[in-house]
């Protein structure tokens, strides 16, 4: 009887390890796909305040900076304030503030944190499936792309403007 219990316990342990091992393998595969997707900007669309399905192209004449945010996140609010304050430093880049939340929330966020008043900033709603391709798992996440579409740098969390401009100037 005792022997059977020991074998049972060891089988449970082996089962747990197999489950975790498989989950790790799947997650690693996901990560690889995300890394490959993020390495070069793929065209996608987002919903702006005035226009739906605004296209974002892979290549353009200017570098691009994407801020993926959540309106409730304090660090995203601080990041928006930083960008609003130092907007001049980013005048040679296309700046995108994107969230998967409803447009009303995004609009209020843009107004509250000074982004709405900025002329050339792109703020809007991105499809959750599209955001997942960037591997967004915390906020804010920042991606800096060269005019040719190559990823120059990505950051997790709040980031100072100089840490962005040093990659694009």
């Amino acid at each position, binding site marked *: 009887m*005792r022997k059977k*219990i*020991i074998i049972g*316990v*060891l089988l449970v*342990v082996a089962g*747990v*390890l197999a489950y*975790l*091992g498989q*989950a*790790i393998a799947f*997650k*690693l595969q996901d*990560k690889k796909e995300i890394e490959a997707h993020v390495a070069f900007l793929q065209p996608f669309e987002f919903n702006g305040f005035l226009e739906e399905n605004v296209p974002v192209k892979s290549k353009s004449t200017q570098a691009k900076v994407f801020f993926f945010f959540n309106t409730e996140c304090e660090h995203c609010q*601080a990041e928006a304030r930083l960008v609003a304050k130092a907007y001049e430093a980013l005048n040679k880049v296309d700046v995108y503030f994107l969230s998967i939340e409803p447009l009303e929330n995004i609009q209020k966020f843009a107004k509250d944190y000074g982004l709405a008043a900025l002329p050339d900033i792109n703020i809007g709603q991105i499809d959750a499936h599209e955001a997942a391709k960037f591997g967004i*798992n915390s906020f804010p996440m920042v991606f800096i792309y060269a005019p040719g579409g190559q990823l120059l740098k990505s*950051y997790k*969390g*709040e*980031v*100072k403007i*100089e*840490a962005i401009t040093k990659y694009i100037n």
Partner: protein
Amino acid sequence: MRLQVLNIIILVILSYYLKNYLVTDEILYNLYDTQLSYSQIEQILSRQNEWVWLGYALIPFIYLLKIGLITICVYIGLFLMLPKKIKFREIVPAVVKADMLFLIPAFIKIIWFTFNVDYTLEDLQYFMPGALLNFFDPSLVESWLLYPLQAFNIYEVAFWFMLAYQLKEFFEDDFQASFKTVALSYGSSFVVWVVFLMFLSINLS
């Protein structure tokens, strides 16, 4: 009980020394400087300083939880492997004594960084003498592999032997039987724990 209190006091002192003399503000500024501005770093540090007491307050709870969990694993092992019944509290001293081995790398770390002052926070985090990680460059290792490479170290091996040695009295001084029980009970739980942390780390990174 005395040994547990002593261990907790030592852990609190080591943690205090680490936080106040090794993880200095300068080290933290250097860490955050690439991404954050001076005022942002100031904010983070002041917030961290507000909650630093919580870190010390949690040490006894984390320590007792760790000892409790290891003892449960070993207790189940002994329950299944031995014909006679052993009381839970009879195993605790053996686990506590063996666990004191983990103070050795903590002391080595403190001595090392007290005299080698040119280091970064990453150096401090990944320093584990006698670990598998020493065969690799931590900056090139995937983040989810860092913990297992640190966790498999000579102190962990010594812990298994020490625990088996402490428990051999329950096996009529048969060290081999004692070690087998430790390997099957604590050992398998340890492997599950390491793999679980790898799983968490890969999901959170």
